[in-house]
Each structure stands twice: as structure tokens, then as C-alpha cells.
């Protein structure tokens, strides 16, 4: 009850502004259309312009925006004393963190739906893998939101959006969204595969191309493992910043 009301509040506070919704949904949809148009006009365009290849990457980009918004929302609540008011109440740390995480899940689902529907309209082949891909995207969304909690806990209202933008750039590069990781070279590639983002995008791509869940076991392990770690770090940084 308490948790749900706070979740509702965070959802409203974060996304009642239409601009935020437009930015976080229209922007990725625009990239989808753009990349698709490049692929059509140039039959020799590399794989990366293929819908089944590109959509999972764009979904990672979407979730990067969630990190940014989450960071901004929390940093603002901290700095403008709203959080102070809640910290006086009998809520527990876990209530706070969950309320922020849960608030972004509907937004993440909305983003995924927008990308998939656009993809299907543009000619993405619908298969079970496309539907099952939520099994990767949900923990990925939770990871990104949890990192937003870290950023919102540690940085100011002014710094959090900048950190968030940087984060979007970094994870999309390391996720192999804009170019094949092979092009980035050995060191980058190795770093990329030590983090969950490239694994998540790979898993999405495999599923979209018809792979079964069994074939993405390793990627899932990376994504879920990091998901738990990031939530843990999120809780810890929130607790650290709000301790008496």
C-alpha cells in the first residue's frame, strides 16, 4: 500500500511531463526508422542496420534514458527536500528503492512495446524469440534503473543528467549498438564483455533471429547476475547518502 502509493508518485513525478515521454519513446522510434531507411537504400549496408540486429540495441538505448531520468528524479527529490520529508516517515530504505525501481518498469515496457511495434510495422519477423525477449529486457531495465538510483544518490541535480548522458553514450558503445564491437578492437571488446550490456544486446539479437532460450543461457547469467549486483549497489548508495 505504502509502496504502491510512492511508486505511483514517482511515476507521475517522472513522467507527467509529456516532453519526457516523447523523448524517451519518440527518439528511439526515430532511430529505428532512420536505420531501417539506410538499410533499404543500401543493400550492402552491414548487419548492424538489420532490424533484428538493431532493435535490441535501441532498446538498450531506451533503458539508458531511464538511467538518466531516474538519476535526475532522485537527485531532485534529494536536493529539494522532498526526500527529507519522506525520510522522516516510517518508510524503510527498501521501500524507497523499490518504489523508484517499480515506477520505471511501466515506462520500460512502454518503450519496448513502441520499439517492437515499430519494428513489426517496418518488417521485423515476428517469432517466439521476439516475445520471449522480455526475459532479457526486464532485468536489463532493472539494471539501468538501479544505476540511475546510484547516480541520483551520489550526484547533484545538475550533475546527474550529465552523468546520465555520458552513461547512455558509454553503454550503447559498449553494448555494440552503433557499431560492431569487433570494430572497436580487442581491449574495448574485452571490457564490453565484462559488463552486461553487450551480453543483453547479443541475447536480444539471438532471440530475434529465432534462437531458443537454451542458447542464450550464458548471456542471461551475465544480465541477471549484474542486475542483482546493480540493485545491491543502488540500495547501498541510497542508504549511504540518506543515513542519519
Amino acid at each position, binding site marked *: 500500500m505504502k509502496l504502491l502509493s510512492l511508486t505511483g508518485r514517482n511515476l507521475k513525478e517522472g513522467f507527467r511531463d509529456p516532453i519526457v515521454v516523447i523523448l524517451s519513446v519518440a527518439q528511439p522510434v526515430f532511430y529505428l526508422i532512420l536505420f531501417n531507411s539506410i538499410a533499404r537504400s543500401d543493400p550492402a549496408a552491414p548487419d548492424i542496420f538489420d532490424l533484428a540486429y538493431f532493435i535490441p540495441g535501441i532498446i538498450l538505448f531506451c533503458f539508458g534514458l531511464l538511467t538518466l531520468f531516474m538519476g535526475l528524479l532522485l537527485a531532485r527529490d534529494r536536493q529539494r527536500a522532498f526526500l527529507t520529508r519522506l525520510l522522516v516517515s*516510517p518508510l524503510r530504505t527498501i521501500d524507497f528503492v523499490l518504489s523508484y525501481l517499480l515506477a520505471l518498469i511501466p515506462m520500460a515496457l512502454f518503450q519496448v512495446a513502441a520499439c517492437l511495434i515499430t519494428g513489426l510495422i517496418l518488417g521485423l519477423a515476428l517469432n517466439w524469440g521476439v516475445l520471449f525477449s522480455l526475459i532479457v529486457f526486464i532485468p536489463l531495465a532493472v539494471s539501468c534503473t538501479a544505476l540511475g538510483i546510484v547516480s541520483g544518490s551520489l550526484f547533484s541535480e545538475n550533475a546527474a543528467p550529465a552523468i546520465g548522458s555520458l552513461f547512455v553514450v558509454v553503454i550503447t558503445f559498449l553494448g555494440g549498438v552503433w557499431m560492431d564491437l569487433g570494430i572497436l578492437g580487442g581491449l574495448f571488446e574485452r571490457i564490453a564483455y565484462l559488463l552486461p550490456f553487450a551480453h543483453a544486446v547479443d541475447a536480444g539479437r539471438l532471440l530475434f533471429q529465432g534462437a531458443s532460450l537454451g542458447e542464450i543461457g550464458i548471456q542471461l547469467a551475465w544480465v541477471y547476475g549484474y542486475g542483482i549486483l546493480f540493485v545491491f549497489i543502488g540500495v547501498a548508495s541510497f542508504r549511504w547518502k540518506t543515513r*542519519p
Partner: protein
Amino acid sequence: MKGFYEEGQPAVLIKNLTREFGRGLFAVDNLDLEIKKGEIFALLGPNGAGKTTSIKMLSCLLRPTAGTAEVFGRDIIKNPGEVKKIINVSPQETAVSLNLNARENLVLMGKVYGLSQKMARKQAEKHLEIMDLKTRAGEPVKRFSGGMLRRLNLAMALVSNPKVLFLDEPTIGLDAKSRRSLWKLIDSFRGEKTVLLTTHYLEEADALSDRLGIIDKGKLVALGTSEELKRKLAGLQTMKVRGDNLNPELIQILREIYPEVIPFEGGLEIKGEKIIFDEVVDLLRSKGVRINWLSMEEPSLDEIYLKITGGGKQNEIA
């Protein structure tokens, strides 16, 4: 209540409460204070005196570096969870959710404190009414004026119906009418809720509080009812008279009665611990004085405040 509080004990018991920021900066320095159940207590003090820091410690937001406090028998360090259930705070900074409307802000606060949806709605409507925000209740509060935000800020501390209220400068930024109506509201809590409020406005402390404390550089430098403080610390009443025929003989007689009699152009200023109005007027008349104008001034809390905080009064003090 069981196990924590026994009737007759202070509602808020502050024991050597201290907060040191960095080495040597004592924001609150060995504060000892008891606030009775149902009492309205005002904490007055200049900027940086330690008022907000005290409230933060009492509301379990900030850990004291020494000492502690009990709220209805619950220790703020050992038992913050129990303290939080029975208190609420109206922070000095306006703390509202800007994209929500006023009603949503209030309902949220009710639910966070465990009220049912129905009860939270009821409390929200009641406080929208009290704070005169009903007609604007559905608008996002980012469109509110400063005064409206302040009223909402206070209302958000009230919906949970706390036993103990900490109000950090509740009326700052309000116009005279809103301020008076908030005074009336806070006054209505007397006997029902225990209230600790901080303020820079001396008339506010004077009008509202059962007792007040003056804090300066983290230390409590005066404590009592406003009457007691006036009597103890300022002392002198002042009478000013303008009139014709204020002769030296009269001044001589007055000087035998009152410690200070100061003539000025066309008039006299008389100071004394207790000036008896009729006595002075009769005396003046009997000596043939025609009184044109006369005023009596009680010692003001202002004077006392300036005296003990060493003139550290800031512009914002009305």
C-alpha cells in the same frame, strides 16, 4: 504507548543534545530542554543558531554527536522507527512533489503514514479546506505561488495526524492574513498536539507559544514564557508624555518615584519597572500640566532578543 511513556512525563525530553560539524563547529551545543505534552514551544534564534539542526536530530534525520532525546519516551537514537510513527515535520525548505497536484501530495503523505485510501482522501480534503487550497487542489503544484506552497508544505505534515509536530519556520514567506490564519490553526493544536516550532518572528513566538527558548550559537540562552522573559530580562516599561507646562518641579517629583525621567522637546520619557498610569496622570494634572499625547510601551521581546543574541538580529525579523 505502552512501555514508552508514562503520563506526566515530558512529551519531548532533550538531554545534552549536541551536533558538531567538523572540528569545533557546534551547530547544537549541549541542549537540554523539556517540552510538555500538548504544549506549543517556540525556538527562536538568529540565522545559523542551530534551530534546523535541532529539528533534524529530533526527527531522526541527523545523528547527534553527543546526547540524545526522547519523544514520548522513545529514544531518537535507539528507537527511530517508533519515533517516526508519531511525529511529523514541516521542513524549512518547501518539500512538495512539484508535478503532483495539491490533493495528490496530501493523499500520498497520508498513505505513506499508513492511512487507508479513504482516510487519506478525507484528511486531504480537510486540510485543503483549512489551508484555503480547495479551489486549486487539482493543479500541479509547480504552478502555485510561494505562499500556497508554504501552506501545502505545512498541510503535508498534518495529514498523518501526528502527536508531535516539528514546524521549522512554518510561516516564512506568508502574507499577514495567511500568517494570522496559520497562527489560529497552530493555536488550535494546544492541548492536543505537542508542537515545537522555530521562528525568526518574535511576535509569532509571543502570540503562539506557551513557552519559548532562545538559542544562539547552538546554546539555549533563555527559556520561559514570554511574560517571564520580558520581566526577567528587559524589565522596564516606558511612558511618553507630551504636554504644556512640564515644569522642573514636576520632573523632580517624578525622579523620586521612577529611576529614569528624561525630558525632551515638549515632552517627557519615564521608565520604570511598573508605571502606574493613573498615578502619573493624576500627578501631572495636579501640577497643572495639560496632556496632549501619552503612550505606554511594554518591554518588547524584540529588545530582549537583541540584548541576548548580541544584536545579531537579521533584516528578515519583522
